[in-house]
């Protein structure tokens, strides 16, 4: 029986989606399930378990939940995500987006300056800021504070978490600004004009028009930045390797340390699974709280 035109079209659409689905299956779905299966074993990179691993049920998870270093890592990750992605990048990115909406001189230069950090690879950013934060007289930041009579500081030791939040904020403003600029641009100009005709102040316009109409974009930004910040590794590893005293040991570092420093693949996979669940939970909360359909 000949296929109807509609069925052919549907099949065509599906065929077009197939490469994306295959890639997602191979590189996202399969590894996620593999990580889960690994988390139920004692697989390791060293020792007898590396040769022949065995099923240990939920032992890795029970060890995980009783490990204070895991809870510390989760806490550090949440502070890092809230501090850099939710507050730092969002506030500064939004401010930059609003400012650059106006007609100002050398706008493209300001745009380029803000976008530049995002063009630098994560590890390079890490090394760059190591030089900024370097202790002793030769650190860039110490040279700056010396102008104000402040003694040289050990920034990554004295303010470790705050220091890495600053770096990630610096790096992420561009993404936030670009996304939020596109959101701002999508708001029809005639709404603003009508509001002004009705005598609305700038504050009222921002609170009653801009912000509500930006909500879908803000949601999208929050969702993406939270999940990507959860997965950060190279930046923090370069800067502090999780120290001092685990104060910057975000989940990515904790997973790496367990899998490739302690060589316990099964346990590392269990942490990765929990990390995935936490990320999904946060994503779900965004969807629910903001009542946005995705």
């Amino acid at each position, binding site marked *: 029986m000949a296929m109807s035109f509609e069925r052919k079209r549907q099949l065509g659409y599906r065929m077009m989606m197939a490469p994306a689905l295959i890639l997602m299956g191979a590189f996202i779905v399969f590894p996620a399930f593999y990580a889960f299966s690994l988390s139920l074993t004692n697989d390791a990179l060293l*020792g007898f378990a590396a*040769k022949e691993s065995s099923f240990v049920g939920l032992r890795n998870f029970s060890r995980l939940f009783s490990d204070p270093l895991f809870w510390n890592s989760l806490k550090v990750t949440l502070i890092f995500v809230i501090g850099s992605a939710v507050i730092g990048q969002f506030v500064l990115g939004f401010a930059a987006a609003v400012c650059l909406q106006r007609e100002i001189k050398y706008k493209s230069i300001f745009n380029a300056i803000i976008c530049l950090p995002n063009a630098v690879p994560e590890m390079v950013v890490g090394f760059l800021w190591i030089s900024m934060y370097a202790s002793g007289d030769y650190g860039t930041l110490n040279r700056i504070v010396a102008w104000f009579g402040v003694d040289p500081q*050990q920034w990554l*030791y004295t303010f470790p978490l705050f220091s890495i939040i600053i770096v990630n904020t610096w790096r992420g403003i561009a993404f936030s600004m670009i996304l939020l600029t596109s959101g701002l641009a999508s708001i029809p100009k005639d709404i603003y004009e009508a509001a002004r005709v009705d005598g609305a102040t700038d504050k009222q316009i921002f609170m009653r028009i801009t912000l509500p109409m930006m909500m879908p974009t803000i949601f999208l930004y929050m969702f993406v930045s939270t999940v990507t910040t959860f997965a950060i590794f190279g930046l923090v590893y370069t800067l502090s390797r999780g120290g001092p005293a685990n104060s910057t040991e975000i989940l990515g570092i904790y997973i790496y340390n367990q899998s490739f420093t302690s*060589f316990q693949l099964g346990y590392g996979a269990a942490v990765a699974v929990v990390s995935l669940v936490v990320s999904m939970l946060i994503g779900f909360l965004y969807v629910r709280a903001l009542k946005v359909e995705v």
Partner: protein
Amino acid sequence: MFKYVYSLLAVVALNASVPANVLAQDLAKKSTLVIAEHRAARLEALYSLQDKLEQQLGVQLKIVEYPAPAQDYFTKLVTELRAGNAPDVFTIPRDLQLDDLAAAGYLVDLSGAMENWDGYQHLPELIKLLSKGSFDGHNYAVPSIVAVEQLYYRHDLLEQAGISTAQPTSWDDLLNRARQIKHVTGQFPLLFPAGLTWGMGSYTEGYRYLLAGFADYQLLDQQGRYRLGEKAPLEAFKFYQTLVDEQLMPIKPLLNPEPWVIPKYEMFPKGQLMITTCGTWCRVFDWGENSRNPIANIEQAVGTWKIPSADGSDPFVLASMVYAWAVNAKSRQADLAIKLALALGDNDVAITYAQKLGNVPARLDAELHPDYASLGILAQAHKLLPRARALRTTVGSNAVMAGVARATEAVIIGREDAAGAQQLLEDYVSSVLGDEAVSRNQ
């Protein structure tokens, strides 16, 4: 169109005919062995030996440069071993990593080859033991150089301050000396590596020195279980606690990402730290005249003490088989790779490496080598080798080292006292290796 297709086919055909000739040449060519090496000094040593080794074995050596930091090197190596694409020959940074690698099936059993190797009879008994897997008694590594570890102190500054430079006889004696140094000079007297960021060094360069201070203590019981609940591990943590409580050791630098940099490379050369644990490499690699942090007139400025025992019995030095050569179990040219590993165990190689790195040759007959005199002060350490002490570990040593790093960190940041740290160590090792791996008898 067809013109292009024919041209393409002609090119392909031509290429297909060429390999027949090339193949014949290839067969006549030497085999290539891939060898992993890392750190500038070690690479320099290997490159200087490359021609000689190639001629001796009739092979081509492809030297692959690995990351310099020991932990990064080991992680990359282990990951490649697991993936099956590791080099034919590589080094095992520390003897206590041998068991874990061998148990994982990554290493070729060299027992037969070692028996027929003339260098084997010249190895000290301790080093022979350390080259064997604890779980099966088979040889898995060819020892080349050894680290002789003890305490290094600023002889010049202690003399200047009128403080005794005599060998401390016990832990109490060492601590009293440390208190005196702090009182008289105001500087930090002692460094025993600790904490998470120092990694395995918290065990190998710190805690191990203290555990070995009990002549009747071994880390393993007769069943090969770790004896972590006993008096010696507890007393070792108490020693750390004393250092912390009385501020005899710099703590802040130990929490940095590279915790050895400030105390060993800055404070010790500047005289802000007076005594540190270290191996023979420190004289050359850390503070030697060609190092980045040279101590002027180092032969006189820095002295060595043996490690005092806990109870005042004979002080001792520790020996570690470092960077022993091993062969990848998945090597396609295992026989050739074994020959290369054995050749790397020769005294020529060992002395070249020892000179560059500040370690000592593993073989006792190295003293008959014409270049032995070039080792200078290292030769004194080499003579200590037959009476050196070591703590045997077994499969799972990585977990013990990680546990010690956690437990010592808990002590230095004041989260746990000595008893709490011991409990933390036991619990950690049990949770990773299983309860059966830890002997909990008091």
